């Protein structure tokens, strides 16, 4: 699942540490989310979307598995 966290964070001139502090997660979690290594839970996705005042589907881009045809 892709996401726009890095783009949204940079547009607000925030560091990863600041965003992590606001969301009450570790900085490593923000790094993993931005790199796409970790998929956020529904709760965290909701918190992130609420923080950026956007909907979940605007922040997170769900891609269907192309191999599953």
């Amino acid at each position: 699942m892709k996401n726009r966290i890095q783009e949204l964070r940079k547009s607000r001139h925030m560091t990863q540490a600041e965003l992590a502090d606001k969301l009450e997660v570790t900085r490593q979690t923000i790094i993993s989310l931005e790199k796409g290594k970790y998929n956020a839970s529904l709760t965290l996705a909701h918190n992130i979307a609420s923080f950026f005042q956007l909907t979940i589907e605007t922040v997170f881009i769900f891609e269907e598995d192309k191999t599953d045809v």
Partner: protein
Amino acid sequence: MFKKLFATPQHGMSDEDYSHLTKYQIDFVSILFIILAIFLFALSLPIYYFYGHKLGSFASGLYSGLFAGAISIKLWSVIYLSNPHEVHRRKIKDTDERVQQVRQRADALTLKILLVIAYLTFILGLSYFTEYYWYLATPIVLILILQYSLRWLFTKLL
């Protein structure tokens, strides 16, 4: 009481709530260790008398260790719970879902590695101990019973 005792810190809880929960759980463990230490201390004299010096010394070492452990964790909690920045840092680390997932994966992998070690010990033991090698199967059986019974229990409870 049990709910609070085994409760895990939840995301979104305040620093104060986290501090209270941690203090409660640490206090319980400290008191439990001290009760066990007193119990062993009371038992150590009859153990010395009836079972000899070796087992008596073992009991003495155990109650000293339990007492020292109880004092240490209590002191450690007093020091870190009095520092708000440390409480906040630990709360974030304990409630972070990715950290929890990593811990769960590490725990699961540790269990698998322990099982492999237990299997290898059992196989090596077959060639060394002709009479009591089946005792080496005990850890494997216990781990597997515990694993499957916990899976069954959690399927029913959660």
